[in-house]
Each structure stands twice: as structure tokens, then as C-alpha cells.
């Protein structure tokens, strides 16, 4: 599938030395996508890590324990956060988001 996008004349002229404009733009967009996704992965990974520090374990361990151990949940509510469910939702988005974007990045790199 292709989508038509108008390129400003100054950019078309700027890119002319690299040959076929369409190919050059494709390469530029691919690089841009890789850069954006990498930035997003790093940001989500940083937040994932912040939650891990706050709760003293990684996401998978917390998800497992908080779904099975009522005493663990009570301790978390007493000592860390009474509204851990809000954190867990955000943590889930960050953790799973790293996986989602990593898969997309891999698809782009292998394409």
C-alpha cells in the first residue's frame, strides 16, 4: 500500500544528490520510525524500572504475587500504596508496551 504525501520543494532539492527521491524518502522515514520507536521503548523501560524499584520486584513477579497472595496485597497497601491497582495498570502498559514496540521495531528492521 502506498500513501501520497507532498514533499516541500526545498527538501526534494536537498535530497536530490542521493538519487531516486522515493527511495530516499523511504529510507528517511524508516530511520525516523526506528528512532521514534527506540525513544519510546527507552521511556517505557525507564518507567517500568521505576515501578520495579517502588514495589521491590519486577513486573512479572508483582503481577503474579498480587493476583495470588492476599497477605502480599495487604502488605503492599499498608506499606507502599493503597491504590496499587492504579500503578499496576500503568506498569502493565509500560511493561507490555516495551514488548509491543520491540516487536514492531523487529518487523521494521527485518523488512
Amino acid at each position, binding site marked *: 500500500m502506498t500513501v501520497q504525501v507532498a514533499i516541500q520543494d526545498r527538501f526534494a532539492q536537498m535530497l536530490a544528490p542521493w538519487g531516486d527521491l522515493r527511495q530516499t524518502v523511504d529510507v528517511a522515514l524508516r530511520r525516523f520510525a526506528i528512532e521514534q520507536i527506540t525513544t519510546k521503548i527507552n521511556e517505557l523501560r525507564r518507567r517500568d524500572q521505576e515501578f520495579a524499584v517502588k514495589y521491590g520486584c519486577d513486573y512479572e513477579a508483582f503481577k503474579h504475587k498480587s493476583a495470588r497472595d*492476599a497477605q502480599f496485597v495487604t502488605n503492599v497497601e499498608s506499606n507502599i500504596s493503597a491504590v496499587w491497582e*492504579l500503578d499496576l*495498570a500503568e506498569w*502493565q502498559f509500560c511493561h*507490555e508496551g516495551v514488548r509491543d514496540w520491540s516487536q514492531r521495531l523487529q518487523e521494521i528492521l527485518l523488512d
Partner: protein
Amino acid sequence: MVATPPGDSARLVTLLEANLQDVAVLEEDATPRRTILRVSAKWGRYRVLVTEIISTAREYRYYVLDGALVIAGFDNAADPRATDLRYGKQAKRHYGENVPHLHHSNKIGLELTEEVTCVDFIAWLKENLSEAR
């Protein structure tokens, strides 16, 4: 693909803005497979925190706080206390499943609920905390 149209977050924010005060979007983001919306708002003197994650399933958190006290918290997290309440002796088989429930009385009280939407939550606020408006 993201499982929900991008307009859904905007509709949710519009709904909250029409009914609550000081609505602020804390986060609105998407990955190729899920979206998240986090919003804070005021309901009279209460602080309201809303989180929705849409992927192949829907996860929600609708919380009402009075300072640090949890006045009410609707969510469908896999809370083992809710799982125990729903399944009794069979609970172990169901740990990890999302179970809709309501926390109240600063989380001393917990009761099972049906799946709750933001519309349901706002209706609950109006019915149960109407004095706060």
C-alpha cells in the same frame, strides 16, 4: 493493531469533562497493541482517578479518594481477595483472572460487581456522593 478507535479516549475525556470538575489528562498513549488513558478530576472535595487500558481486553480503574482515604475504587484487577470472594474454594484455579469489584471504606470493604464503565461510575458518583457536588 490497537483494539479501540482513537476517538474513544476523546469521548471518555468529554464525558468526564461534562460531569466532573478540574479534569486533567495525565496520560494518553498507545502502542501497536494497546491504548492507555489516565485522568484525574475532582468531584466536589473528592479526587477522582480514572485509568483505562484497552487491548484485546479492557482494564479499568475508577477511584474516589478523600486525601489518602479510598472512598471507593472500582476495578477489574486480578485481586486475590475478589477472586476468593467470587469462587470460594475453587479460587485457586482462577487466580490471575480479572474480577470486577468495588473497594470501599478505605479498602476495608470489598464487594463483587458487574463490569463497570465510566458511565456507570459517574452514575454511581451522582447516586452515592451527591452531597459532594
